[in-house]
C-alpha cells in the first residue's frame, strides 16, 4: 500500500512536470526561430564530489533533449564538475575541473583525447581560443596553452585561482579570482601570446570571475568579497589604455556577449536569502550605454544561475543546486522565449552551438 501510494505520487509529480514542460514549449514562437538542424550542447556542472557532470544535447528544431549521450558513446561518465565547454573546429573541449582534465570529443560526444599537463594534473577552469591555440586557466594558478594539433600543454604562472579567460589581439587575459584565499584577489593577468609570458596585470574589483570581449573592450564580472562587504560588480577595461570603469548594475550574476551587445544577468536575494527572479539587461557596448531590459514577454527566470550567448540564442540557466536545472532560450532579436527545457543535469551552466 505504502509503495503504491508513493509510486502514485511519483507519477503525479512526473506527469505535472511533463505538463509544465509541454506548456512551456507551447510558448515557442515558430516564426521567430532560425531554421537550424544543429545540436546545442548544454554543460551541466554536476554536484561537487558526486562525479555527475554531464552534457545534454538539444536540437531546437526537433525539440529533442538527449542526456546520457557521452556515457553511451564512451561507456563512462564525464567526471566531476564540468566547468566549461568550447567548440574548436568540429571538436568540443570540455574542461572537467575536479577530475583534472580536458576531454576532447567529436560532435557526437565520442571521446577523442584527454588533455592534461605532462608533469602533474591541474584543475582546468575556463577555455578560450585565439591565434590557433586553445587557452585554459588552471585553478592552481596557471594559464595553459594547448596546441590543438598535438594536444600538448605548456603552462605559465598567473595570479591565484584564475577563472575566466579571453584572447584579444595577441594577448590573453585571466581573471585571477583568489577564490581560495581568505581575502580574494583583485587583478587580471595579461599574458603575451607569442612569448607566452606574463607581461602585466590590471587592477579590478575583488574576486574577478568572468571575462567577456565585446565591441573591442574587455568586460569583467567580479563576485566581490562577501566577507569584506564588497559587492559584485561589472567593469569595462579599455584594452589600449587599460583604464577600468564601473558599469552600474545591481546584483549582477553573469555576463555574455553577442555582437556588440552585452547581456547582463542580474539576480539578487531577499532578506531571507531567497533568490529573486533573474532579469536580463542589454548594454550596448559599442555606444557605451544601457539598452533596457532584454526579455520582452514577461518570462520569469526563477533560480537564475548563468547566462550564455550563442549565434542564434541568448540562454539563461536556472538551478537550485541540487535538482536538475532548467534552460531558457531567448530570441536575441525580440527578447522572446523560444524554449524552456529541463537540462537533465545539476547546475546547467554553458551552452555551445
Amino acid at each position, binding site marked *: 500500500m505504502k509503495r503504491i501510494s508513493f509510486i502514485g505520487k511519483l507519477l503525479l509529480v512526473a506527469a505535472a512536470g511533463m505538463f509544465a514542460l509541454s506548456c512551456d514549449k507551447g510558448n515557442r514562437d515558430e516564426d521567430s526561430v532560425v531554421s537550424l538542424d544543429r545540436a546545442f550542447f548544454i554543460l551541466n556542472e554536476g554536484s*561537487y*564530489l558526486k562525479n555527475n557532470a554531464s552534457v545534454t544535447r538539444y536540437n531546437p528544431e526537433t525539440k529533442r533533449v538527449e*542526456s546520457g549521450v557521452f556515457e553511451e558513446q564512451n561507456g563512462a561518465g564525464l567526471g566531476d564538475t564540468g566547468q566549461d565547454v568550447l567548440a574548436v573546429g568540429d571538436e568540443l573541449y570540455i574542461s572537467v575541473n575536479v577530475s583534472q582534465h580536458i576531454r576532447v570529443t567529436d560532435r557526437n560526444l565520442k571521446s577523442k583525447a584527454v588533455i592534461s599537463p605532462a608533469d602533474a594534473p591541474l584543475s582546468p577552469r575556463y577555455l578560450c581560443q585565439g591565434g590557433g591555440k586553445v587557452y585554459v586557466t588552471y585553478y592552481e*594558478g596557471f594559464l595553459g596553452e594547448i596546441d590543438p594539433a598535438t594536444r600538448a600543454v605548456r603552462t605559465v604562472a598567473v595570479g591565484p585561482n584564475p577563472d575566466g579567460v579571453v584572447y584579444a589581439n595577441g594577448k590573453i587575459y585571466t581573471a585571477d579570482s583568489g577564490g581560495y584565499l581568505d581575502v580574494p584577489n583583485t587583478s587580471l593577468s595579461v599574458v603575451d601570446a607569442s612569448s607566452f609570458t606574463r607581461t602585466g596585470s590590471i587592477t579590478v574589483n575583488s574576486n574577478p570571475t568572468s571575462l567577456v570581449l565585446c565591441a573591442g573592450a574587455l568586460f569583467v564580472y567580479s563576485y566581490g568579497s562577501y566577507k569584506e562587504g564588497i559587492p559584485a560588480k561589472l567593469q569595462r577595461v579599455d584594452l589600449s589604455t587599460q583604464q577600468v570603469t564601473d558599469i552600474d548594475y545591481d546584483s549582477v550574476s553573469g555576463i555574455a556577449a553577442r555582437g556588440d551587445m552585452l547581456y547582463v544577468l542580474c*539576480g539578487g536575494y531577499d532578506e531571507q536569502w531567497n533568490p529573486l527572479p533573474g532579469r536580463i539587461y542589454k548594454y550596448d557596448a559599442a555606444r557605451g550605454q544601457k539598452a533596457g531590459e532584454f526579455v520582452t514577454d514577461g518570462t520569469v527566470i526563477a533560480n537564475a544561475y548563468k547566462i550564455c550567448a550563442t549565434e542564434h540564442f541568448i540562454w539563461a540557466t536556472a538551478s537550485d543546486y541540487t535538482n536538475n536545472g532548467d534552460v531558457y532560450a531567448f530570441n536575441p532579436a525580440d527578447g522572446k522565449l523560444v524554449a524552456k527545457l529541463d537540462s537533465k543535469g545539476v547546475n546547467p551552466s554553458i551552452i555551445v552551438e
Partner: protein
Amino acid sequence: MTASGIELAILLTVSAVRGTCVDAQPSERADTLGAARVSDTRGGRSRLDSGVPTLRVGSAALERSGARDLAEVLRTLPGLNVKDYGGIGGLKTVSVRGLGAAHTALCSDGFLLTDIQQGAMDLSAFDLDDTGSIDVEIGTPDELFSPAGSFPAGSALRISPKALDFGDGPLKTSAGIGWGSFNSWKPRVRVEGRLAPGWGVSARASWLRSDGDYPFHDAKVISGGASSAGNTLRREGADVSVLKTGLRLEGNTRRGGTLTAGADWTSSERGLPGAVIYYTQNPTERLWDRDLSLRSAYERTAGGWRFRAGGFFRQHFTRYTNDDALYPTPLDDRYLQRHLGASGIVQRGIPLGPAGRELRLALAQDLSFASLAADMMACPDPQRLSSVSALNLQYRSERLTATAGVAATYVHEQSRKPDASVQTAPDRSRLSPSASLSWLAAKGLHLRAFIKDGFRVPTFNDLYYDHFGTIHLVPEKAFQTGAGAAWQVDAGAARLSFTADAYYNRVRDKIIAVPTLFVWHMRNLGRVDMKGADLSASAFVPLWGKYAFRAEANWSVLDAVDLSKPEAKNYGYQIEYTPFNSGAACLSLSSRTASLSYTLCAVGRRWYLPQNIAANEMPAYFDHSLAVRKDFRVHAALLSLAAEALNLTDVNYEIVRSYPMPGRQFRLSLQITI
C-alpha cells in the same frame, strides 16, 4: 560550481570527517539500564514490555557477531540507517527512522556525549573492546533513570562498558593482537582486578594502525578514445593510527552506594582519502585528534529512592591540514572543544498495593558548558551553556506500563571574543513532551504506542561557521508517533519473538545549507514526512549438548518524503540516502566456548541527490559476513581465537556517493587472558 560552493562542500566533507572522537566510556552498571527487564538470553533483541521500541545487543551477542566497531553492529538493527564514508577511518553516523544523525543522543557511561561543532558523533570513536552492551530506545527513553539530555532527542543510543570483574582472584590480564586486511594491526592489553574489598580497577590500552588502502572497482575509465572497463584501484591516503587508553575505577561505598570514575585518552592521526573522483586521485587532507575525557558518578538505591549524581570533563583537539595546490597557502586549521558537565537523577518508586503495581517519578537534570575555539579568521569562539530538566512519571502494573513526561531545555550562548561586533545566537528554550503506553493484551503479547515532540539544537557549525552560519536558526523539530506489537511464545525450551511497529514522523525547520551566488547559508527550510514500519522476528532453539541456534531477521520500510518546497523538482520525493527497504538477518550456532555466525545486511535502492531519477539512483546491495570464534583453556589461561570474513561476495557498493566501501576483507584475532 562557484568557489564558495566548493568551499562549502569542503566544509561539509571536512566537518563530516573531523568529527569529535570520544572514546566509549566504561561505566554504567548494567542494571541502570533496566536490564532486569530485558528478556533473558533466549530472547531476541527487543524488550517486549516497553512503550517504545527498544533494541539491545548484549555482550554475548556482541562477541558472536564478530563486530569490531559500533557501525557494524548498528547497521543490523531495524529502523537504523548507518551512514559510512568507508574504511576504518571514514566517518560513521547513525540515523534512526530517517530523522538524521543529529537527532540520535549517544549516552556512554551514563553521560550524554555531544559534538557541539557538527552535531552527530562519529561512531568509530567508540571502542567495542570495552563495550558490554548497546541499547537503543527509539522515540524516547523508556528507562526513566536516564540522563536528562537524552529526553529531547529523537532516539537514545546507550553504550555500557563491560562489567568490571573484581572478585577475590588476583589481577586478571588479557592481551591480544588483531590482524586485518590492508595491513591492519591492533595490539591491545587490559588489566583488571581488586584494589581493596569492594573496589576494582581496570586499565586498558590499544593501538590500531592500518594502511587502509582497500581496493575498489572504479567506474569505467576512458583515456583518450579507448575505454577500459572495471579498473581496480586502491584507496590512497587512508592510513589510520589510533591509540586508545583508559582507566576505570568502580567501588561500593560503606553506605551501599556505588562510585565510578573513568579517565580516557585517545590520540589519532589519519589520512582523509576524500571522494573518489573519476580520472584522478589526489589525497591531500590529514586529520589529527586528541581527546581527553574524565568522569565520575555516584549512585545509590535506598528504600524507594534511587539517586545518581556525576560530573564530566572532555577536551577534544582537532587539527586538519590540506596541502592541495588549489590553496595558495595550505590549510592548517585547529579546533578545540571543551565540555564540562554535571548530571543528576532522582527517582522515587511508590508501591501501589499488591500485585507489583508501582508509580515511579523521576527528575533528571543535566547542566553543561561547552566551548569551541578555532584559529579561523571569523570564528567568534562561541560558548554554550545548556540546561536540560526532565520530569517523568510512570505507572507500572503487571499488564500496563504508562509513561508521560516533559523535558525542558534552555540554551544560552556567548562569545569569548570581546569584540562588540561579534554576535551570538539568542537564548533558546523548548519543551519536549512525550508519552508512551505498553499493554499486555494476551499472554506474551504486548501492544505499545508512543508520541513525542523532540528537537535538535543547531550546531556551532550551523550557527557560527565562517559566513556560512546563521545565528538566527531555530531548533529543528522532530515529531514522532508510533504503535506496534511485540509477541513472544515459548515452545518447550525454544523461544520465538516477533515485533511489528508502524510510525509517522515529521521533521520541521530542518536545518539545511542553501547556496547563493556568493556564499552558502544555513537555513531552517526543510520539512520531511516519514511513514514507516519495522518488523522483526527472532528464534532461539537449544540443540544438542550446550549448543544453541539463534536466528534473527528484520525488515524496515521507510517512506521519507521531502515537502520543503512545492515548486522544487524533488517535492514529494524520497530524501537522499534513505532506502525504502532495508533489512538484516543474523544466524548463529553457539556454545559457551565457540560460535559461528552469519550476518546479512540488505539495503534497497536509494538516491544520492534529492530527485528520484535514474541518474541519481544507487543500486541495492547485499553484504554478507561470517564470524567464527573459539575459546580454549590452556592451564590457567583462556585463549580466544576469532576470525571474520566481511563482505564475502566482494560486492562493490557505496553508502555515500563517491565513497566506496571496502570489498571482501578478513580479520583474525588472538587473545590470552590470565
